[in-house]
Structure formats: C-alpha cells, structure tokens
C-alpha cells in the first residue's frame, strides 16, 4: 500500500480521544432535508427560463388588453365607411393598424378578434381536457369499456382532422356554437385516451393499491392519488389545445365554412386580409403577427410547463 498515508508522525494525537463517543442516533438519520415542494419547484423551474417568463407576461398582457379594450374604447369594429377615402388606409395615428377594404379600423378589430378567438379556443380547451379527463378516468377504471372506446377513438381519429372539421362545419350552420361543437366533438376522445393511459399506470401503482387496502373511498383516491399526479398534464394539454383551436378556426374560414363574415375573429380578419394582401399587405400582416404571438406563446408555455413539471428537471 505504497500510496496510502501512513500515520502522520508530524501530527500529535490526543490519546484521550480514543475513547467511546456519545452516540446520537439522530445524526445517523440525517437525510439532507431540503424543504422540497413539488409545486414550488415546478414553478421555479418554469420561470427560470427568462424567455418563458417574457412570453407569459406578453401573453397575459395581450389577453388583458383584448378584454379591456372593448370596454374602454368607443371605436365600433364593425363600422363600415361609405367614403372611399376611408378605405384601405395605411397605418396612421388615427388608425394604428390602418383600415380594411370596407374602412373598418383594424386595430379595434384585432382586439375584438383576439378576445373572441381566445374565448372560443379557451372553451374548446376546457371542454376537451375536462371531458377527456373524466372519460379517461372512467375508461381507465373500467376495462370493459376498452373495445367500445377504442372503436370510437378509431372512428373519430381515422378521419383526417381537417376533413372532420370541414364535414361537421359543413353540415351545421356556422356559428360560434357549431364551431365549438365540431371542434370539441373531436378533441375529447384524443384527450380521453391520453389520460386513460396515465390513469392506468397510476391505478396499478403500489401507492394506489395501498390506498385500496386502507379502504380509501374513490373520491379521495381521485383528489389525493390521481389529480395531483396529472394536474400538470391537464395544464399542458389545455395550453396546447389553444394554438390548435385558433389554427382550426383560421383553416375553416379559408375553406369557406368558418364563422359568418360579421363575426370578428382572428381567423376572419386574417382571411379577409389575405384577399387584399398583394395591394395592402399591412391588413393581413399586423393581425397575423398578433395571432402568431398567441399561438407560439401557448405552444411554448405548454411544452415548457411539461418539462418543468417533470421532477427530473427540478433544480
């Protein structure tokens, strides 16, 4: 053992130290207490990325603005001007985003559009994830439902999403409600399957079996064993629903089965602007930028939140 430090002769040791020490059992149980809380760590990890923080602030500002603007402003977004001079005005101090082919103020329309589109997307996200989670839970707990649910899943998802939306929107008269129905009637089953798989793995986990051995009622199993484990997924899925819903609305408008032209939504504004893009690009560009900010922000937030909610990424 040539390398090892033989007793260091230069150091003087105290013989009295070679006697039994007092044993403290708590010293041996030291675990390095860190005062960890799942949610606090998730939030901290989420906001650690400054770009995410900026996006959250930006998106919050846009949404607040879209709700505040219609309340404080007296500009009528649907006011059509009969004077040719009011048509197709470039952005100016009076009309910040300019006016469209009918002389309507695009700045005002953009905010009404953000509000309406966001509300629609939000309702769809809520219903998709909400119904999906409930159905997923029932599905996960009842193996007998498997064949029928899988068949429903196959039928709905085997039709390409755009074709499905077009078909339903085509059959029903277009309105906010029918648009909501056609989109929501598809999303729930996708979410249900997603949640079912998660709930299955929780259901068979040892801690859940332990709860059953203790006779824990279903209600408390749901609130204590299941929801805390999937809440981050719920938030992520809901966030990712929003860009998808907005995109679908734009698409339906393009195909010609979107909302009626007098409905002010981002989809309608963009599709309207597209028609006159070559002559008056600003009519499309400016609302499009807002739309893109919203969809990108929700997409990034959803994904980053999923990362942050994974305990492996906790700092």
């Amino acid at each position, binding site marked *: 053992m040539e390398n090892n430090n033989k007793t260091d002769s230069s150091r003087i040791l105290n013989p009295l130290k070679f006697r039994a*020490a007092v044993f403290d059992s708590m010293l041996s149980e030291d675990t390095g207490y860190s005062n960890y809380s799942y949610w606090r760590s998730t939030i901290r990890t989420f906001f650690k990325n400054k770009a995410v923080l900026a996006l959250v602030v930006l998106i919050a500002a846009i949404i607040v603005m879209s709700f505040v603007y219609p309340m404080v402003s007296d500009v009528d977004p649907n006011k059509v001007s009969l004077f040719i001079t009011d048509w197709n005005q470039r952005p100016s101090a009076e009309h910040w985003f300019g006016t469209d082919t009918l002389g309507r103020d695009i700045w005002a329309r953009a905010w009404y559009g953000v509000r309406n589109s966001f509300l629609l997307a939000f309702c769809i996200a809520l219903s998709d994830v909400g119904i999906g989670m409930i159905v997923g839970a029932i599905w996960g707990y009842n193996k007998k439902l498997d064949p029928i649910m899988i068949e429903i899943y196959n039928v709905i998802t085997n039709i390409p999403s755009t074709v499905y939306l077009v078909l339903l929107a085509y059959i029903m008269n277009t309105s906010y409600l029918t648009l909501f129905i056609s989109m929501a009637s598809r999303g729930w089953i996708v979410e249900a399957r997603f949640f079912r798989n998660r709930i299955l793995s929780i259901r068979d986990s040892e801690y859940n079996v332990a709860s059953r051995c203790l*006779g824990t009622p279903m209600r408390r199993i749901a609130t204590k064993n299941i929801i805390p484990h999937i809440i981050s997924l719920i938030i992520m899925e809901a966030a990712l629903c929003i860009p998808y819903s907005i995109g679908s609305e734009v698409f339906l408008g393009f195909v010609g089965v979107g909302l009626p032209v007098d409905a002010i939504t981002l989809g309608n504004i963009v599709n309207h602007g597209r028609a006159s893009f070559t002559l008056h690009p600003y009519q499309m560009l400016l609302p499009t930028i807002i739309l893109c900010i919203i969809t990108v922000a929700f997409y990034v937030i959803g994904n980053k939140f999923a990362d942050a909610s994974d305990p492996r990424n906790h700092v």
Partner: protein
Amino acid sequence: MSNNGHTSPKIFSAQDVEIKFNLRGKVLTALRGASLDLYEGETLAIVGESGCGKSVFTKSFIGMLDKNGSITGGKIQYRDEDLTNYKTEKDWLKIRGKKIAMVFQDPMTSLNPVRTIGEQITEVITWHFGTEHEQAKKEAIEILKKVGINDAEYRYKQYPHEFSGGMRQRVVIATAIACRPEILICDEPTTALDVTVQAQILNLIRELQRELKMTVVYITHDLGVVANVADWVAVMYAGQIVEYGTVHEIFNEAVHPYTKALLQSMPQLGIKGHDLYSIKGTPPNLFKEIRGDAFAPRNADAMDIDFEEEPPVFNVTDTHYAKTWLLHPYAEDYRKSLDERDAQIKQEKKAAEPFNYTDAEKLLEVKNLTVKFKLGGKEFRAVDDVSFDIFKGETLSLVGESGSGKTTIGRAIMRIYNKVDGQIIFRDEPITGKLDRQKKKKLHMEMQMIFQDPMASLNERAKVDYIVSEGLYNYHLFDNEKDRLEKVENIMREVGLSSEFASRFPHEFSGGQRQRIGIARSLVMNPDFIVADEPISALDVSIRAQVINLLNKLKRERDLTYLFIAHDLSVVRFISDRIAVINKGRIVELAECEELFAHPLHPYTKALLSAVPYPDPDIERNKKLLVYNKDMHDYSTDKPVWTEITKGHFILANSKELEAYRKEIEKQG
C-alpha cells in the same frame, strides 16, 4: 511489494481517485480518494451499500462516467497506459470492451431488444479485430456455446425476448468476453436473477475466468456472493476503500467497524428471537464535506477522534489493511474491550423456542385458491389451487422465485382482485366476493399490507402526515385534529422516525425510512394480520436488518400475525415459524422452518436450499448445487395431491412420489 500475497503481476492500478459530480448546481464528491490494484487472474469483490461509489469507481476505469462527472484527482493506470490522460472517445476505444469489459446488473435491459443476440456479439468482434463477418459469426457461435447456450447456431438468430433472464445474462457475458478482455467488471451480475440461476451464473463466470485467465472484479452488496467468488475483498464506504484483504481475512478477522457491521447484519448469522445486528441510519450525504471517519455517525462504538480526524490506513497483516482509528496503538485497550463485549453477547444469546402449534388458533384459511389472469387474450393461472392455513401469532413465509405467484396470493387475500376462485376465510368468515361496508371496514382494520418497493408505494405528492393518517381519515378513527396528530406522532415514534418528518414529502427519505413510513401507514389501523410483500428485497443489506428488527419488534409488542412473502430463504429462516415454498403458482411444500431446512423433500425445495448463499467462504465454496427440472415429475396419469406427509409437513406429490418421500423420511430416522 513482493510480499503482499499476490502471486501474479499487477496489471491495473487506481491511486487516490477523486470523482466529483455536478448535480443541480451542487457538487457531489462521489469518490474521496479511492485506491485499488488489480492483479492478473485474480478475483476481487468490491462491497458496499448503494451510493458508496463502487459503480462510479469502476466506471471511471473505462471512461464511462456520466457527463456531469469528472475525475478531479488521482491516477488510473492500466499496464503502461495512464488512463487519466485519456480524453477523447478514440483513446478509450483502445481499451474499452477490448481490454476491460463490463457486465451490468439487469440482463433484461442490457441487450438491444430489436437486434438478434448474434448480431450484438458479432459486431463487437468485427469492430475490435476487423474480422470478416462470416468468421466473426463463427466465433460468436463458439462463444455462445462456451457460455452454456444450447443449440447456439439456432439461438444466434433469436432476439433477446426469446431468452429467459438467466440465459440473457449468459448472452451478456458472452458479449463481454467476445474480445477476450483482461479485466471483466461485473456490476451486481446476479442481483436481478433468481437464487438458483444466480448460482449457475457465478459458476459460469468462474469457469470462464479460469479458462481465459481474466481478472474479474465483482461489484456487489451481497456478502454471500462475495464469499462464493472472491479471492480478495475491498469494502467501500462513502467513496473510499475502508478495508481490504483476502476473503478469509474479511470474513473471519474484519477490523473496520463498517465491515463488521455489514457481516453481522446478515440474517444468516442472526439468532432467532433476538434482534439482528443493524447499522443505524443511512449512508452519509456526499454533498456535504465529511469530517473524520465517514462511518462514525452511524457507529455506536465510535471514538471521539473518529469525528475529528480522518483515519489513515493501518496494515493488519501484509495482505490486510483497514482505514480505522481502532488500529492505532492508542486505541488498543478500547478495541480489546469491544471484542470482549461482542464475544460475550454472542455467548449469551440463545435461540427462541419454536412456535407452539398444538393449541394454535386458525386466523386465516385459504382453500383451493386460484387466480387467473388474461394475457394477450390467453388465460393463465398465476395461482393454481393453493390451500394453507395461517395460525394466530405465527409468521408464515411464502417463498418462491419471480413469477411464482407469491405476490398474487398476498394480493388475493387483501381483496385487490375482483374475482378469484376458491375460498379465503378470515376469522371463520369468508372474505371473497362482495362484502357490505361494515364488513369491509372491519377487514381493513384487521388486515393490512406492507409493500415491496418503498419508492413506488408512497404517494409522492402527499406529505407523510397524510400518508400515515390515510386510514384514519377513511373511517374517521380519531376524535379531533389533535387526537389525529397524536396518533400519527405515536406511530411514527413506534417505527423509529422523528415526528418532525410528518410535514415532509416522501422523496426526501431513504429507502429504509420510506419503508418505515409504509409500515406506519398500515399499523395506524391497528391490524392483527399483516401481509408483508417482499418488504426488504428492495433495500440494502444494512437497512434490511433495521426493517427486519422493526417487524419482529412490532410482532412481539402488538401480537401480530404475518404472511411474509419473500424470495430470499436466508431472511425467511430468520424471521418465520413456517415456510411454504411456491413454484409456478402451486405451493409444493410447507413445513415448520427448522423441519424444512433439516428435511426438505420436494426436489424444488432442495434445489432452492442448495443455492442459498451463505456468508462464509469455506461453506460457500464447497456447496453442491442441485438443479430442479419439472420433468422430474411424471404427472401424466398419477396427479399430484396436497398431502400432509408427517405432522405439519405438507407436500405436493403423487402417490408414487409420496412413497419415495416416506422412505426418505424413514431412512433419515
């Protein structure tokens, strides 16, 4: 150097290696100056609890540290190459796999599932030697034959999932030795395998080593394995080698308190009815700087100096050294007093009287229990027509290998499956099928379960306080909040945890502590009967003793009855009154503990007993392995029946076998 007991040349040397990891902005010192030499053809075992750095240490030999880790000190040398200078992948490829090979713990995940095992062996040969594919294939088949795989040409083309766990580990070993490495590092090579398979794999490695003249390094926490295979043993603790010596020296003359503690906490060495020696607490937190002897906080006999100065290495003999202040001349008196005390304790302990079955009262009866599962549209019987009784106050152990159905029996008793066939009777009332709320409540208060995996059995998102009082909430078993808190506090104290822990989340606890939280959760219901489903198999050796002692203590104090499910016969012998051996869903033999060990009848029981590792190198090296094969039975016409062959000794056999067994008993007297 000449007189260090090693007869062959030194081929590898690691000196004072220090390895640090960057984890979430904090620095973890995984190795704190570990040194080790390897000599040609020898077998070294590195022993220690998980987290002591043994895997990290050996990974650094082949440059396989995780990205966030680096060698910050010391020197690693292989023959004439200084491996500390190796920086690029190209450098490491010169020795990785070719000169130093490695085998991992879990054969189920070590092989690529979508490539044939043949390809996976051949690619190593072609890469390292540039052999033509056809030639390499021939060599690969040779190697497969060598590791004991029959019909190698055919199996060459098969995928890993077509092999059993033991066979896969053989393939993994074949891959590792395909390039005739000089050093083979086996990282817990048998931990994931069943006992009977484990013994075969160890024999295989030994044979290959002799044939190929390899140096083999075992990393293990199982002292039975060490006793079986090792020439030399290095004991690791908190990133350092704390004791090194020949296998006999370590097992018979250990000096470091940690080594001694490890050996004493083996259940094989325990005396029934007494507490097993146990190491307190948990291994140290390597994020913090360690002062003095790292083991001191867990060592009840530590000296003052242990907390202040790091001990140097003292030689015991030429071949044996240890890093402990006990070997300092100043400590001589103290050491002697400790030795005397230990000897005295050993003498005083007497084994407890066996359980008295004459007036025993039946608590639980299982009659013709069958549990069927559907797997890929096919029905298979996880438990097949099993019957046994459990008497009040006893510990009945159910022993079997993985997939034998032992856990399924436990869960069937706990009413976790919706549908089972047969009858389960608890306190004279059948408990299968639908029950009303009142009866369910009663059962939940009387029967509880302890789970295997302390990591998975606690809800990560709930605080310990909720986890422990879950049962109290369910049936509102408390008067008010103050009463509930008091109950939680009492139960925490009973399982040896501080009541402050109640406000923390489970992931902050070590495996042993988590297991104790799980036990507290069951105990809070004040049950009489507990199904303990492999409660210690996921724990480290030192922690196992803590949990075994706790279970025994609770049994004494609360007059509990246990159904103890396990795969490890050595633990079972220490803890149980009766043992039932289960194989492929059927109980093949059931007898009182000592009777079963003394007169095993069923060939499966015999095979299982012959494979149990024992922490004594002399016993371990001379043991004879028995192999069980279900073709031993001819059940084509003469069906086996569950029979009581002598009082209290049940066996599954047909009439012809019974006759043979009776003769065997007569002969034994």
